């Protein structure tokens, strides 16, 4: 994951960089010890304390990418991908497969419970196993039977739900009477004009010439203001993430925050 432009590195630069790397590692270890040492001598390192060191180390390694993409960063990133994969697999077992497949059938509390579980769960479990055939090359088509039922249901139920919640309910406020003070009427008109012009901008059956061109221009202005709002909010979001990490490094790791 190299940063945008990858400067060509000669040996001199390589030496400097490895020296800087060792320096940073030592500084990190010193900071960790310093933080824990003054409290009445070397306290036994609790699991939680060790955890904060590891987390702080990984955070700094990932920020090293800002200087340049380096093996340490790639290692941390791939370790993260691996740990997430493992976590996903374990949690899928404990929260979905075990309670839905193993517990009702293998650990059924009574015969009646077992029969009831068999009645309701055999078909979906068989379809789940069918789904797994997608991984093999020649039997892959068997998985279609599981997919088609799910995709068919999703497409079928999707139509009335989308019409209900995203079209009719959204049209509701667009057909309210324009009433109240000047600003309410102006606001209502602005929303009506905005919605209609944006819809017209994405209208492809009529040439955008003459009046059509004016309407689609207005539509673009509304779109630009909306994307501007999203731009500003996205900046706010990414900055908050960085602030959170800085709070962790300064507060939880170094304990400097008041």
């Amino acid at each position, binding site marked *: 994951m190299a940063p945008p432009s990858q400067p060509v590195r000669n040996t001199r630069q390589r030496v400097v960089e490895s020296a800087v790397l060792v320096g940073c590692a030592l500084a990190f270890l010193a900071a960790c010890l310093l933080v824990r040492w003054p409290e009445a001598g070397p306290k036994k390192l609790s699991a939680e304390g060790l955890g904060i060191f590891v987390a702080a180390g990984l955070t700094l390694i990932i920020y090293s990418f800002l200087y340049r993409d380096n093996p340490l960063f790639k290692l941390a990133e791939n370790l993260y991908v691996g740990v997430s994969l493992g976590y996903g697999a374990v949690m899928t077992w404990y929260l979905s497969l075990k309670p839905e497949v193993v517990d009702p059938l293998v650990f059924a509390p009574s015969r009646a419970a077992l029969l009831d579980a068999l009645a309701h769960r055999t078909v979906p479990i068989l379809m789940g196993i069918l789904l797994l055939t997608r991984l093999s090359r020649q039997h892959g088509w068997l998985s279609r039977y599981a997919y088609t039922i799910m995709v*068919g249901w999703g497409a079928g139920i999707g139509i009335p739900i989308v019409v209900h919640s995203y079209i009719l309910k959204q049209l509701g406020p667009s057909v309210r009477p324009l009433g109240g003070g000047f600003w309410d009427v102006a606001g209502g008109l602005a929303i009506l004009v905005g919605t209609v012009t944006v819809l017209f901008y994405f209208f492809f059956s009529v040439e955008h010439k003459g009046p059509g061109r004016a309407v689609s221009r207005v539509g673009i202005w509304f779109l630009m203001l909306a994307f501007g709002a999203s731009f500003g909010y996205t900046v706010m979001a990414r900055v908050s993430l960085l602030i959170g990490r800085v709070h962790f490094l300064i507060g939880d790791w170094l304990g400097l925050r008041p």
Partner: protein
Amino acid sequence: MLYKRAIPLIIVFVMGLLAFVHEFVPHPLSAAFREEMTTWFRIIGGFGMFIGLYSLLHMHATRIRRKQLGWGYSLFVFLGALGMIVLGLVNEPHGPLGSAPEDGTVFDWFYMNVQVPCGATIFSLLAFFMASAAFRTFRARNLDAALLLGAAVIVMFGRIPLSAMISDVFPQAADVLLEYPNLAAKRGILLGISLGAISQSLRILFGIERSYLGGGSE
């Protein structure tokens, strides 16, 4: 060909029609049908998860086997995944057939001190990329981009508490921008996307759209 292509398409159509019609029928039978179907999909979902995880691990495994570019790092993906799976299934107080690992287990330690910090930090890198892009490439090259950057500045300044201290006009300006032009445009986009989603559902039901079938030979 019948059982590889025709029957699946028939199933899609019948299932879709049932799902569509049952939405309009208040009869208790239709509620029972919905509960049964959603119970099925809840169970199948667990197997679906495994397909996603397996194919990712498989990709990294082939990269290691074939020593492709960056195979060393794929080794770490494997180590991380297998380590977590072993730790998760050990789960000492309850064992693999007990309830999920709770606080204080090594599994939970790795989640809290490796997965959470890495995930949070990687995403926070974007703040830096955004700052540098803001300086080097975000130009008001035409009226549209100028409007966009103008609105962005109004929202960015209006949403921080500092601006409210100076005067109420800034937060109000941001609110007006969000509650009128932004609302109108996003509603227009939402209506457009919804019509697109309905037409895609229709194409799936009538078998015009088949790309989701996949699964090996035609």
